[in-house]
């Protein structure tokens, strides 16, 4: 039965919006329990050192101190990825960066905890530090970790799909460029906080500002030595996440342990400075890209290299490394593709996933590289992109299955909106239509709608939803997903309301509680709308079936004639014949007993079967195109982004207003990355964070934010709930390269290093004035001893997704 949508596609407010606007929402630090102690964590001021001794006797003697813990209390390592279990809640014998946690106290209040923390005496034996990608590649000793691929190399990846050399041989032009994307951080307004309560039944509850309560649950079970069934993790509403609250964190483990020792609830709230040390943000990546193209811009082969500065721990870094090479193939047709990636360890806060996880850096490099190729070929940068799009319903050279693909429409929208053809005047500066200093640039991108594989290997669903209907007509939807502000609680309510024909505000949403809600893997990889949405549809349709069976029997109407809308179940042929939704639940409960249903979602299997094929596959890919308009002052080097036109292929908007909010927020964050945000370090060893404060870590205020013109392309994807794809991360991706390309259009200099600061623009302009090429950026990459690539025949070569057996495969 075709059914008009009543809820989907409408701009409802979020179900939790009012509570957030009146101060009722309880974030982690808002939780206060009777007899609660306060925890403070002593952090290393040494970047790399052996811990010779820790003397906590003075701290323990301070009145009001209840416990002090050190690395000895946490012998079991953990980490988000099974392959990098390299963290201890408190350092055991060695510190690896300034900010590494060494000891923790629980005390009667914050003042006492702070004083006690400062009474702990730690003796260190300093070690030489590793502070850059180059150093990590070149210097083997001292090793920051004793695992990985030798020296200070954490991970090397080398994959080749088809023969890239054959591709280059076919090309009319082969171009090579080098780029650097500086690291930056999430900077959520809410500092991480957690409260643990170990109760008299020896069960522990942790409330925490986390995006991944399920993974925290698993880490706690491992580290605390408690049965997982005795651990409850409740993710409080996140005051911003952006990927920065996706790892299990040391402070979460520490407060649990302190609560177990003291028998009292224990809270920790990080200072802003500590949040900078938690980091797990954007990896600094040095990149080299070499592409062969035909005269019309068709790509014949591409070789991409990534050199990642991972910081001091593994975090999601192995996945980040693969992601930095995975999605180059999903926008423009790349028939042969080779990727080499290396992640290094350095004595700096660990890098991890930030909005766009591992992909904004290569996307920036690729889109600026393409712009340079277009100039060399004399092609319009729009045309070189628009003419060579990956077709929908295809499989890429690296075995990513593309479903719906709306990038062409996205490009058309932003080209039209920005009046591109009137304003872009080709590559010869003598023909320019815009005044010198004004410029426009274009870039495109794509992002996954959920990672195809979970972080730990299992055959269970990635998302589960449970529905309970009560005889008063109440509907409760329970799901492990975590609302980090993106609106995932609301998506559950909208979808269940749509299927059951009720109002979203009739529904109680219970989420992110490992005791009460079925597992959802968490708010990362833009997976939530697609995966929880599909699980919610399944659960709600199962409930709907029970309702219509009971109502059909009562009314003597065929089941297929019944519709659910406006809080009624009724005969579509005689709409006045029907019952209220609440009556329908009573009928169903009378007939079937208590009404509860479940739904679950597992992504489709990926066609790739080679080692390393786990990162990149997704049920669907979102697409974005952006045009940026900039004003560059040649005297100061200051870049002002005046306007961004952005079109996003959303599949279908579950709620267009929230989609636009995500687009605008993504543009904002991309703007911060390209113009000003950077995690940089100082001192002669380059390991002291330059400015761990919100004042000095520059992020855009209202005064720097640009105007945003948003277009939504609705081309429903068969794998999305009602056709919906992601929007939380993808629209960030085209913004940095669109701005970089616009800067070149404005003043004729290429800034091949993010962020584009006034200093870099001025240096490039001076360079150009001296008759040189007017480029600011890296020139070389360090000499990595790459393993023989794992070779895979592409689908068009008749490959089946497995690696070729006759070549040496590195482990």
């Amino acid at each position: 039965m075709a059914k008009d949508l009543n809820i989907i596609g409408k701009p409802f407010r979020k179900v939790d919006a009012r509570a957030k606007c009146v101060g009722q929402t309880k974030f982690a630090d808002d939780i206060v329990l009777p007899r609660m102690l306060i925890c403070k964590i002593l952090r290393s001021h040494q970047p790399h050192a052996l811990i010779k001794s820790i003397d906590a006797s003075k701290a323990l003697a301070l009145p009001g101190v209840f416990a002090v813990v050190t690395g000895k209390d946490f012998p079991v390592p953990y980490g988000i990825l099974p392959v990098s279990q390299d963290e201890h809640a408190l350092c055991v014998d060695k510190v690896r960066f300034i900010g590494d946690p060494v000891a923790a106290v629980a005390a009667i209040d914050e003042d006492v905890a702070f004083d006690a923390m400062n009474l702990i005496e730690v003796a260190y034996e300093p070690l030489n530090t590793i502070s850059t990608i180059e150093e990590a590649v070149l210097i083997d000793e001292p090793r920051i970790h004793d695992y990985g691929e030798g020296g200070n190399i954490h991970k090397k990846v080398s994959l080749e799909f088809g023969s890239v050399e054959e591709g280059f041989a076919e090309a009319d032009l082969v171009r090579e460029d080098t780029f650097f994307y500086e690291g930056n951080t999430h900077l959520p307004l809410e500092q991480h906080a957690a409260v643990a309560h170990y109760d008299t039944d020896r069960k522990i509850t942790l409330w925490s500002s986390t995006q991944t309560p399920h993974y925290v649950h698993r880490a706690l079970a491992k580290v605390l030595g408690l049965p997982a069934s005795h651990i409850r993790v409740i993710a409080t509403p996140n005051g911003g996440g952006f990927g920065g609250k996706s790892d299990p964190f040391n402070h979460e483990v520490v407060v649990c342990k302190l609560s177990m020792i003291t028998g009292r609830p224990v809270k920790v709230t990080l200072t802003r400075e500590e949040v900078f040390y938690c980091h797990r943000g954007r990896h600094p990546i040095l990149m080299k890209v070499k592409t062969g193209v035909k005269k019309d811009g068709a790509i014949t082969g591409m070789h991409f290299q990534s050199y990642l500065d991972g910081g001091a721990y593994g975090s999601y870094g192995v996945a980040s490394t693969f992601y930095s090479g995975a999605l180059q193939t999903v926008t423009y047709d790349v028939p042969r593709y080779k990727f080499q990636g290396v992640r290094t360890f350095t004595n700096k806060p660990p890098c991890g996933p930030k909005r766009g996880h591992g992909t904004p850096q290569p996307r920036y490099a690729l889109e600026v590289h393409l712009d340079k190729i277009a100039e060399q070929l004399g092609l319009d940068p729009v045309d070189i992109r628009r003419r060579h799009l990956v077709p929908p319903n295809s499989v890429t050279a690296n075995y990513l299955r593309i479903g719906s693909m709306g990038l062409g429409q996205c490009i058309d929208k932003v080209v039209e909106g920005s009046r591109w053809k009137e304003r872009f005047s080709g590559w010869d500066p003598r023909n320019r239509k815009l005044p010198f200093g004004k410029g426009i640039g274009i870039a495109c991108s794509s992002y996954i709608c959920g990672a195809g594989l979970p972080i730990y290997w299992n055959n269970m669903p990635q998302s589960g939803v449970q529905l309970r209907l009560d005889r008063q007509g109440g509907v409760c939807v329970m799901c492990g997903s975590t609302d980090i502000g993106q609106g995932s609680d609301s998506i559950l309510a909208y979808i269940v309301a749509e299927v059951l024909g009720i109002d979203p505000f009739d529904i109680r949403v219970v989420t992110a509680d490992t005791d009460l809600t079925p597992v959802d893997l968490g708010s990362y990889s833009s997976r939530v709308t697609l995966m929880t949405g599909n699980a919610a549809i399944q659960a709600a349709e199962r409930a709907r079936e029970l309702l219509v069976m009971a109502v059909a029997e009562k009314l003597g109407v065929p089941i297929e004639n019944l519709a659910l809308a406006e809080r009624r179940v009724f005969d579509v042929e005689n709409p006045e014949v029907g019952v209220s939704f609440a009556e329908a639940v009573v009928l169903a409960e009378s007939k079937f007993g208590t009404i509860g249903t479940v739904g679950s979602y597992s992504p489709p299997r990926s066609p790739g079967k080679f080692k390393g094929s786990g990162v990149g596959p997704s049920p669907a890919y979102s697409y974005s195109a952006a045009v940026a308009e900039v004003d560059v002052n040649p005297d100061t080097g200051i870049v002002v982004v005046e306007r961004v036109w952005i079109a996003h292929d959303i599949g279908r908007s579950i709620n267009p207003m929230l989609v636009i909010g995500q687009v605008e927020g993504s543009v904002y964050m991309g703007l911060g990355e390209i113009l000003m945000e950077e995690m940089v370090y100082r001192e002669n060893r380059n390991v002291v964070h330059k400015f761990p404060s919100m004042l000095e870590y520059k992020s855009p205020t209202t005064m720097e934010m640009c105007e945003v013109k948003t277009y939504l392309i609705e081309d429903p994807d068969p794998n999305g709930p009602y056709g919906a794809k992601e929007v939380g991360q993808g629209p960030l991706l085209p913004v940095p390269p669109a701005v970089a390309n616009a800067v070149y259009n404005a003043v004729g200099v290429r800034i091949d290093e993010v962020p584009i600061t006034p200093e870099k623009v001025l240096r490039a302009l001076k360079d150009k004035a001296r008759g040189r090429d007017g480029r600011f950026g890296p020139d070389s990459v360090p000499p990595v001893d790459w393993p023989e690539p794992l070779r895979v025949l592409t689908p068009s070569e008749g490959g089946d997704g497995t690696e070729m057996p006759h070549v040496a495969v590195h482990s």
Partner: protein
Amino acid sequence: MQRHSKKHIRFTLNGEPTEVAFAPHKTLLEVLREDLNLTGTKHGCELGECGTCAVLVDGRSILSCLMLGLDAEDRDVKTIEGMADGAELHPLQQTFADLGAAQCGYCSPGFLLVAEELLKKSPNPSRAEIQEALSGNLCRCTGYIKIYEAVELAAARMRGEEFELPKESVYGLE
């Protein structure tokens, strides 16, 4: 264990006479959150950098992390909990909620109070005036645009004017 004897003050909090005793070095932010259990006021840095902890003191926005609690004596303090009129939300609270100006919602209390101060002074502010008034508050979720729209819609409603939000703000451009 109490190392500082508490000081006692009286002031007006959200329209109600209030008495509270606290350690004298505490900031107004800490007094509100820890001694009066009004956790609607948030903190992002506790160094005066992010605007998240803004409250109104005698009608003017201040950063509660930079003001001593003792300095609130005899003053009139308004927090997010006092912004609604009973069960009736302030027009700004309604529009922030309805238009998606609150994503994670963590910065929203600060933005709402600063916006309230702005609309008292300037009932029909231009977009540029709104940007300037809110420039001391950081938001990492929204890109600020939905916040501007919420302020503009609330301002129009408070002036008793009909105001239609452009369709593109909700559905995107055609």
